[in-house]
């Protein structure tokens, strides 16, 4: 237990901050994923074949290629890509991207592909009559989307989004390869300096179990809230 003491003597406070970092990365990645889903879901549902192709390419590649490979792509290619864009605007200095941004962005892109599929499925399973009824009532396009379609989409999507959240949360462990100090990286460092890997990786496992358990409880509440009326 001494190893987990807070302060200079133990790794308790380090692991605590690392846990906060994991939560921060996971939430940021999930939000970035929603942003991607917001762009690609309409493309998936569009009648234009070319737009369909773009969205399908995105989801197929991300869901068929290992997360680790995607992370390596952004880790090694990220700053080169940003420097390339910057050089177009005449900025030639070296730019280093922070590990948090690289990590959150790569996990976000992955999470976005899953979210896109969830939203597509949810919107497609809404009864056609709902769209027609909204038209008949003379609602504006925004009113139709925000008052009729979105609430029903959310209700259908939340159980599946909770799966996406669990996947995203667990995927954040992979960003340890970029050097960002989240749970896995901190356990790796602690295991290296104390030579007690079994203890620290077990701590990491317990922390992840705690996070998945906690989020399951919170999501169940959210589900109850949105399933009102059923």
């Amino acid at each position, binding site marked *: 237990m001494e190893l987990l003491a807070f302060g200079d003597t133990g790794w308790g406070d380090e692991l605590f901050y690392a846990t906060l970092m994991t939560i921060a990365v996971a939430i940021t990645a999930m939000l970035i994923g929603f942003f991607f889903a917001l762009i690609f879901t309409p493309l998936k549902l569009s009648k234009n074949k070319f737009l369909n192709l773009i969205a399908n390419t995105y989801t*197929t*590649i991300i*869901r*068929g*290629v*290992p*997360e*680790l*490979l995607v992370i*390596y*792509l952004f*880790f*090694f*290619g990220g700053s*080169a890509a940003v420097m390339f864009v910057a050089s177009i605007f005449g900025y030639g200095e070296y730019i280093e991207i922070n590990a948090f941004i690289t990590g959150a962005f790569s996990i976000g892109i992955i999470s976005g592909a899953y979210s896109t599929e969830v939203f597509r499925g949810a919107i497609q399973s809404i009864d056609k009559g709902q769209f027609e009824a909204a038209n008949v009532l003379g609602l504006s396009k925004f009113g139709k989307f925000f008052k009729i379609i979105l609430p029903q989409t959310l209700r259908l999507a939340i159980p599946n989004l909770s799966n996406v959240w669990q996947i995203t949360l*667990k*995927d954040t*462990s*992979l960003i*340890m*390869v970029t050097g960002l100090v989240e749970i*896995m990286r901190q*356990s*790796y460092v602690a*295991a290296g300096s104390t*030579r*007690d*890997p*079994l203890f620290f*990786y*077990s701590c*990491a*496992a317990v922390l*992840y*179990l705690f996070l*998945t*358990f906690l989020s399951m409880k919170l999501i169940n509440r959210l589900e109850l809230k949105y399933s009102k009326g059923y």
Partner: protein
Amino acid sequence: MDIELMVNSFPKLLSASLITLKLLSASLIVGLFIGLLFAILRLNKNIFMNKFAYGYSYLFRGTPLLVQIFIIYYGLGNIEYLRTTVLWVILKEPYWCAIIAFSLNTGAYTSEILRSAFQTIKPGIIEAGKSLGIQSKIIFYKIQIPIAIRQSLPAYGNEIILMLKGTSLASTVTLMDLTGVAKYIISTTFKPIEVFIVAGGIYLFMTFVVHNVIKFLEKKYSY
């Protein structure tokens, strides 16, 4: 775009994907047995066995695969006592550790898939078997298992693809699988996009094959 690098790295990546396939097939086979075992335990009326199987699946589905590999490879290998036993022969090899971790992980997911498949079998089918005077053991092997396999094919196909992606984590315990070699080439040439296209293409091809084999099986066993 460095086409030459892409052409040169292709054979290296292709031979590395052999390790990926070996890891995948070994863990799927072992994982299927573990999954079947724990699915049966879950359906058992004995509360202790039931809880044990639930705990197993909760533990392995609630933690990242990376933690599981690290615990088995770095953690267990660090226990002095284990080093003196026969187990050390297995635990000192990253290859076997990766297979153990993947098997236990996919076993947990497979047990959930099979459990829900068994639970969706209509009781009428089992009753029909009983009324024909078939032994309950034979009902299980000849009626319940084939139906459960058919029911779980789509979900199991997903699990195979997730596991294929999961094998990339073997590169974190020094194994040179497809991702491991890809990372090595990227870090020596600093050409991430080219290598990503080739390695990603190989992964996509494998996913494509798995997807279509499952689709074919689904059609073949549909009723």
